[in-house]
């Protein structure tokens, strides 16, 4: 695993999640940020800050990215979502096109 192949997602509270680019690309929004030529500072530093997304939600989203990769490779498990997270998670997922 090389550093260039990872991306750091930073939550509203400044917590950092270092994940594989492959996982982050599950989000169309992050995919666009990381692949548009030159226009996003994010693509150069490999860091994306989400001032609107809380740490708990951002971690759940990262878990979802990895679950998505596992599911795509044939593993059939449910993705657990605590009821109290649902609304905020939906808003974040909508923003991230996930």
């Amino acid at each position, binding site marked *: *695993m090389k550093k260039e192949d990872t991306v750091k997602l930073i939550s509203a509270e400044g917590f950092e999640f*270092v994940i594989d680019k492959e996982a982050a690309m599950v989000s169309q929004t992050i995919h666009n940020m990381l692949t548009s030529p030159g226009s996003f500072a994010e693509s150069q530093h490999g860091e994306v800050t989400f001032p609107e997304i809380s740490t708990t939600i951002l971690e759940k989203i990262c878990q979802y990215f*990895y679950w998505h990769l596992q599911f795509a490779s044939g593993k059939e498990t449910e993705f657990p979502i605590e009821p*109290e997270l649902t609304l905020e998670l939906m808003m974040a997922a909508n923003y991230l096109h996930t």
Partner: protein
Amino acid sequence: MDMYIRVKRSKTTYFIKCKPSDKVLDIKEKLQELIDQPANDQRLVLPGTREVLEDSKTLAEQKVENDAVVALTFRKDDNEFEEVNIVRPNDFYQSRDGDSANW
């Protein structure tokens, strides 16, 4: 991809792809690529039991499963390892419940 684990230290979480048959040393070598600490100066600890994971054993042998949280500590200047330090976000749901009590 078989599984991943969440390696946490302070306010940072590293999602590491791995296999149940990976040895703990393999995980440290992956981490070494991401952080400026050689595998030898890293220690991985199960946060619940404070059990230190052994380099030569596999994840499966030490019951580290998919989505598990593992604490990362570094060797300090005096050759000892740091205490486990995982910062959690303030539980905003509790604070929200507190707000609703005032309504």
